[in-house]
């Protein structure tokens, strides 16, 4: 047994008072969860502490909170691990962000999270005819969408989404991961309609800034941002959707600039995103308008030295050898057959029996690489305060 001090954010909407911090010291085994700590405080000292919780095993998704500032499930964070991330010797627990607080640690998920889920037409629209028996679909396709099905709707990703902080109307990581569950499902009849809807919406798939916060936050390895990137790729590559938000053109300009110059040529990005993929783009009317309206931003960027007048004229110079390496990466990726686009995910570990005993990377690490920093629990752990991303020691 060990003593832990919980610093809980309390808020009573009926009191007329502002939120405040309250300390409770609990006595528990260090490997037990922060939720067990809160439940002990509630059982022993104050039954009025408000928190949603049910399964205690990271399945029901009720107990999303912020622990030492990081989104997490209270039942999925050990007390000793939480202590490692402590800022002042206490375990700080507060409600999730981006959602209104109703009482103590309870937020209004319906107003934000669930209304966004409802936004993405969250049910299967059957491909016709519906077969008498089951739809015959590839094993891999079902495993693939099962990663999105693994989402427990806890709201941790919504809590930490930087885009949503800036644009509260952003459909957001959880709902877009849900959308992928239908776009990736071969039994759904309206892939194209769904993608068009999500691409044309100014708060849709191109509103994500690629910050990885949701991947770190997710306790189940759903990797919402990866699902958003897949939606973008399927939308542009497979369905040829050119959106009115200029998201698709922006991506093409971005990747081509990096391919040609090894590094991003910032000054060229905006004109090429709007005017087309060429140096002459800046003289096109769409690019001109956009350049004009962006003048204040450009001015600020110049003042702060983010771009220089020279940089606008000349791209960054990379040693030839490095540039060749970048080009080789492009050749390898683009040379791959689309049909063989093999994606690692939570359930497809990329682990092969042949690797047993070989000094290859651990399967979780392999997955993590493919997912951009996440592979199931390894990523979940890194999303939790004070937890080291390496594998837990075995007993």
């Amino acid at each position, binding site marked *: 047994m060990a003593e832990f001090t919980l610093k809980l954010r309390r808020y009573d909407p009926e009191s007329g008072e502002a939120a405040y911090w309250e300390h409770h010291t609990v006595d528990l085994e260090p*490997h037990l969860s922060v939720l067990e700590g809160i439940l002990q405080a509630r059982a022993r000292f104050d039954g*009025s502490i408000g928190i949603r919780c049910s399964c205690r*095993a990271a399945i029901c998704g009720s107990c999303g909170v912020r622990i030492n500032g990081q989104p997490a499930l209270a039942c999925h964070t050990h007390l000793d691990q939480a202590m490692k991330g402590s800022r002042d010797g206490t375990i700080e627990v507060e409600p999730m962000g981006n959602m209104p607080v109703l009482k103590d640690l309870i937020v209004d998920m319906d107003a934000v999270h669930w209304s966004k889920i409802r936004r993405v037409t969250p049910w299967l629209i059957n491909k016709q005819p519906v077969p008498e028996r089951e739809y015959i679909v590839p094993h891999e396709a079902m495993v693939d969408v099962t990663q999105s099905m693994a989402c427990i709707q806890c709201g941790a990703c919504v809590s930490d989404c930087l885009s949503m902080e800036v644009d509260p109307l952003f459909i957001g990581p959880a709902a877009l991961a849900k959308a992928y569950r239908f776009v990736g499902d071969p039994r759904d009849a309206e892939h194209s309609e769904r993608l068009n809807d999500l691409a044309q919406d100014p708060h849709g798939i191109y509103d994500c800034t690629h910050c990885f916060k949701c991947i770190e936050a997710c306790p189940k390895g759903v990797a919402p941002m990866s699902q958003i990137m897949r939606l973008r790729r399927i939308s542009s590559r497979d369905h040829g959707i050119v959106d009115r938000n200029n998201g698709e053109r922006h991506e093409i300009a971005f990747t081509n600039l990096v391919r040609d110059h090894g590094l991003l040529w910032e000054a060229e990005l905006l004109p090429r995103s709007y005017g087309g993929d060429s140096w002459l783009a800046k003289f096109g009317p769409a690019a001109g308008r956009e350049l004009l309206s962006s003048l204040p931003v450009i001015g600020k960027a110049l003042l702060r030295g983010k771009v220089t007048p020279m940089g606008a004229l000349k791209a960054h110079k990379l040693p030839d050898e490095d540039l060749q390496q970048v080009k080789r990466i492009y050749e390898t990726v683009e040379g791959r057959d689309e049909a063989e686009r093999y994606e690692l995910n939570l359930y497809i570990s990329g*682990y092969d029996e042949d690797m047993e005993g070989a000094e290859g990377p651990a399967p979780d690490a392999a997955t993590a690489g493919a997912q951009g920093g996440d592979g199931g*629990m390894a990523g979940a752990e890194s999303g939790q305060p004070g937890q080291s991303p390496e594998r837990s020691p075995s007993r």
Partner: protein
Amino acid sequence: MPSHDVLIIGAGLAGQRAALAAADAGASVAILSKVHPVRSHSVAAAGGINAALKPEDTWESHAYDTVKGSDFLGDQDAIEIMCREAPDELLHLEHIGVTFHRNDAGELGTRAFGGASAARTYYVADITGQAILHVLYEQITKYHETVNSYEEWFTTSLIQDDEGTCVGCIARDIRTGEMELFNAKAVILASGGNGQTFKPTTNALICTGDGIAQAYAIGAPLMDMEMVQYHPTTLAENGFLITEGARGEGAHLLNSDGERFMEKYAPNKMELASRDVVSRAEQTEINEGRGVGADGQGILLDITVVPRKRTLEALREIVNIGKDFAGTDITREPIVIRPGQHYIMGGVKTDVHGQVPAVHGLYAAGEVACVSVHGGNRLGANSLLDTLIFGRRAGQHAAQRAKSMPMPTTPTSRLRQDLEHIDAIIARERTGRRISEIKDELGTMMNRNVAVYRDADGLATAHETVRRLKEEATTAYIDDRGTVFNQDVLGAIELGYMLDTAEATVMAAIERKESRGAQFRTDFPERNDDEWLKHIDISRNGDEEPHVTHSPVTMTHWELEERKY
């Protein structure tokens, strides 16, 4: 005052399936739950759902396995319905979007499960319950025009008209504290079991037997309440569930000598004998000193014999649970488990349409109900099936019944009684015990005396204790005086529900003087078909003191036999 043709209380698999079926049959539907529907405990069902769908499999084989699994206490007419209708229900789930595992040909694939003579368990990795629950909720969202979802509403009581017909419920909006009276032509209880009366349990904190106690309170008998399932593989550390899918995939059980001891108890089915048999075998090994762990109270589950790639794909959730909650990499070393409370076979007695014969207008489906398809012991992967089949049947039947009825109305003055009860709890002086203390004592005591092995002395102690705790609960106090999310006062009401259902369990276990299924009496170690091939019904009929009666088991095609695995 909301009025609906069909009112469903509880939004797990049984409740949501009932809601969709009733809406399809043309009814206006309300589904009301004390938690958001996807938080329901169905989410925790891991391993899969049984159906004899493969051409070479038959419903008769599935039914026979279920009858045998129930130790012949299951009603065979109900079992036949469940097993016959299983394949269509499974295909329905597939059609609405459940991402079931496929074989290499792209068809639905299966895994093996306990007590089954064929591999007929369909699954989504080891999140089958979650996948089905979330897909049903997708459908509830789609049906938003005909199904009103009341999320985070706590039911305080069922209401009856002058003839005793159930005509709705009273519930509290947890978010505002407001009380509301719901009128309905039919009420379907789908609010789950009472696992929280045991500690530890694999069940979620919300499983407090609410619906069982509410039906019991208005005169519905409870059946098979003595049959409490202990799951063979719960994490020794904290009681979390390790899916039977692990053994389905080939994992072994080992004692402290490293011996696969199931050879002694079930030489044919080994680790895949039915759950009561495996749990008893484990407990015997532990009692005879061959347990593992610091306290010798554990058994080893060895999943390392399953190919690692397969474990990572098909048992992902327990890889995580092992790593996060026990510090064990299950793909590399065995994990310490023990039998733990998991499920109750008993519940509100219903017919095959989900109707409660004793109370007109009332239905029950899922763990809250006892049809009885599980009898003395439920087979793994039959519970999801039970919730869906009987949830759908109850929804359809209730919708039909509603068609020929006027909407009942109950004067809102009926609200006052429940409101006063809540106010009285809030106003209690801090002189009694804390709610949490009583709940703890109840759970620990039940797990000691009403577990895998039972005897007259332990059960008598249990009975005495429950009665004392019931008394103490009437003065137990709470801290929260507010109305918004006052979870404290709901906890006090739940404690009352738990104590009522625990008392029924203890009384039924005392009554059954034989060993059958999950009930093993060390003082009556044999099954005694001559005297005890019958259900035990516990009812209150308005009295404080419960009544114990018996009812016959329905036998159709399957004859009694000795049960061996």
